[in-house]
């Protein structure tokens, strides 16, 4: 008897508590920056495509929903010829982001991707690529890698010595 009254009293008190239910979609919940939602491909600080087509995200993906094909531009810079994510399969685990050596692939705080047609959940590079560096503003992979690409020759990357003159006789 006493417990029923106690429960009623507790429920009554809840009428004066702060509401947890959010009136979505009129009202939006605040998502943290590290929230794992929709996947994007980002760009370097100098606006080059960050993705170098290394296939690590695809290999890390537990549902195998990422496919791409690497290719090279005339300067020797690698980029994906196509980059496809099948979001109808994606489980938003974030392994791809973790595997990415160039910070190209990032999960962002957005989950509003519902579609009536499942086919529309297949995102190509045009849907994935954004015009900015995303969560990691400063990083530029090609400034660290030893590969020469257009505008950056051998020995011009960070922490590199100028190329060796093989024919030099100086010890």
């Amino acid at each position, binding site marked *: 008897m006493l417990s029923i009254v106690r429960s009623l009293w507790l429920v009554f008190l809840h009428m004066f508590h702060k509401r947890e239910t959010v009136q979505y979609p009129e009202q939006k919940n605040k998502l943290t920056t590290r929230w794992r939602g929709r996947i994007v491909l980002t760009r370097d600080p100098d606006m080059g495509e960050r993705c*170098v087509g290394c296939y690590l995200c695809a290999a890390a993906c537990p549902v195998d*929903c990422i496919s791409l094909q690497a290719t090279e531009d005339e300067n020797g810079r690698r980029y994906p010829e196509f980059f496809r994510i099948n979001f109808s399969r994606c489980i938003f685990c974030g392994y791809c982001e973790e595997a990415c050596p160039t910070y190209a692939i990032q999960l962002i705080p957005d989950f509003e991707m519902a579609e009536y047609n499942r086919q529309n959940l297949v995102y190509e590079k045009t849907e994935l690529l954004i015009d900015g560096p995303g969560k990691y503003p400063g990083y530029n992979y090609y400034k660290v890698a*030893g590969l020469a690409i257009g505008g950056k020759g*051998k*020995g011009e990357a960070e922490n590199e010595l100028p190329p060796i003159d093989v024919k030099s006789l100086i010890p």
Partner: protein
Amino acid sequence: MVTIYIDHKPYTVNPGKNLLETCLTLGFDLPYFCWHPALGSVGACRQCAIKMFRDGDDKQGRLVMSCMEPVANNQRISIMDPMAVDFREGVIEWLMTNHPHDCAVCDEGGSCHLQDMTVMTGHAYRRFTFKKRTHVNQDLGPFINHEMNRCIQCYRCVRFYKDYAGGEDLDVFASKSNVYFGRSEPGILESEFSGNLSEVCPTGVFTDKTLKQHYTRKWDLTMAPTICQHCSLGCNIIAGERYGDLRMIANRYHGEINGYFICDRGRFGYEFVNSPNRILQPQHMGQPIDSDKAINEISELIKQSNVIGIGSPRASLESNYALKKLVGDSNFYKGVSKQEQALTELAVSILKEGTVRTPSMKETEKADAVFILGEDLTNTAPMLALAVRQSVKQQPMQEVNKLAVPEWNDAAAREIIQDKKGPLFVATVAETKLDTIASKTFRAAPQDIARLGFAVANLIDSSAPNLSNLSEEEKTLAELIAKSLLASERPVIISGTSCQSDSVLKAAANVASALQKRNKNTGIVLTLPECNSVGLSVMGGLALHDAFEKVKNSKADAVIILENDLYRHGSAKVVDAFLSKCKSVIVIDHSQHATTTKGQWLIPAGTFAEADGTLVNNEGRAQRFFQVYEKANVKESWRWLSSIGSAAGNAIMQPWKNFDSITAALSQEEKNFNGIEKVSLSADFRMHDGQRVPREPHRYSGRTSMLANVAVSEPKPPEDLDSGMSYTMEGTRALPPSSMIPFFWSPGWNSVQSVNKYQEEVGAALRGGDPGIRLFEASGKQSSYFTNVPEKFKPVENKLWGVPIHHIFGSEELSAKGAAVSNRVPLPYLLLSKEDAAKLKLTEGEAIEFEIDEQGFKLPVKLCATISTGVAGLPVGLPGLSFIELSSWGVIRSLK
């Protein structure tokens, strides 16, 4: 057998090996860089350090390099000793100080020995904060990409390229950590084996440039074991596919044939599979037609007409057999010229009925005297040239053995050998790349090469036919060759069909049988024109010429041409007449060529990558190649033919369901192919866990996304009716049987170096025995000598004796269609001696007009210092050069 103790546990092992090999054979994961099973040890990288103890009481021990220590009885070593583990980690940390932050854009990543070894030693964190040294790269041609920053100075590239493969243009420059591996100046790598650098290099300094064009990681490829189709040796390869394109060819270890290496034609010749010239849809009169409709209409057509079938030496046994059964035995023709037919039959009879056994390539490597007659091996059978390069080290190696230096101790052995070379005699029409290692070379017309062979045979055994009027020079040379061959323990005679002379083959057979009487270890190796020349020859059938006759006499009006460009086997005039006389021409092939343009019906056959089949190589070894991937509308030729046969009511073909039923029929019906079904396991084969062997690695990616752009629902993966392999990543994780290894991979060993886990013993046969079955061994039925010694070659005024010159890139039909290889194909020319050119007042590059085999040519002249006067070399099979029946007289028509 001796006992060694590794970390206190006793193991019984073979003596004579080094500890590294032994540990790897026993299954231990011991890191290494500079050691390579085919190249031996130099102890340069210090990566394979282990602890060695004096005896059971020694607790201290000392660090040794396991690759430099021979196995000894009661040896006590430790791999897991903390000091050894620390040392190895330290070594790799130093090696990595200059290694660039490149893995993401490096083609080696995912199949990188350096990655594997770094993970294996546990080096995970970079403490070196100073600047990295860098290098400028070189353009090394269409095959190999150069990225020198990644180098860890293991020296394996130059040891392979220079010491093993005899290349001269790759070397090491500069000193200390500035060491640079490359050419003295950028340019195309000259060696025919340069592609192996991509597998020999433990990291990404040398990588496959053709793979780079459509780069895919090893884990993303659908791979299957297959056989190289570009010469008669039958090297084992792995082919990998992604997104419907063939992406790369890698070596597949075979202890008896190719070992660890393949040639560049085999590695880079695959691009014809992706060529836009492929036939991908059945066509009738140039219009696409549905497959079923095509099958029905063709089956009606052949019921109503007298049909003949033309087989092909580059099609599988099954395809040729299916054609033979479809058109009837008497209507089956081999699809090779009369001369090629005769030469191939002679070669096969020498191998089959002669007295001398044909050794495998591995045995040829161990030969201690080699005599080559008429064959430019580097261009006709490149891997055999590589084997010959090893054979000249055999005789000097005896000195190494005498000094009790183990053969695997490469640096010491080379120090002892210096420039000494074993006996190698090269008798060819023009200079060859093997000349530099030959003891003596002989340049002459094929007739005179044969005469030299006959003379040698006569000197070895006087009951062999004698010949007169040899020049003094030839006599001394023949005596020297005979003496060297007699003095050797394992002599090998090499010849082949490429100089289009039966006398040369007969002379080689005579030398071999004469030697055989004195030395039972003699071997004879013959090279043949195409990948299945032996198989087709054993199957039987008449030559192309006879098919022409039959149609000319109106005894047949329809022809099915199987994977064959007739214009490569007969002159344009004759083939044109033949094809226009035929009412119906049905061409089954994978790529467009001159013959397909004349076909009313075109049926899209699968290339080796889209087909299963069996090929017989030059030693009579039948080997199975497995389909790599499915392509819509494209099927194996034998599948098309058996569908047509079934529709036409052919009683033999109706029960044929898959590859197994065809091979079973072949094995039953043709006595020469008895037991051929044992070459590979049946389609019902499953591993002990009841699963198939997966063609895709377990890390294969993108399954639910690759085709999502077409339809978001994934299609059912194709089923394999013909083998116990699956087209997916699902399947066994256990070691597959040796005949169906789709890729080499082992936990912790992602690179091709994991092959040691698949071998009984490092460098020996694959576990379960090397795949393939020899169909025949020399029976000795034909023990008498060939007697018809040819006449001495005499130049004729205003005429030139045309002899074929082969090119590794260009002379073979399929490889030349690929983009990378076509870059290396020479332009047609006429090879002329300097004397003849002077007589004709021609200089290098000037055009000469001549007539040969009823065809007129105008070609630029290339001068050669060594070719005999009166002889002209004509390149074979180059694009733009029509078929010529060589060797024959050519008439010089006019000058300039």
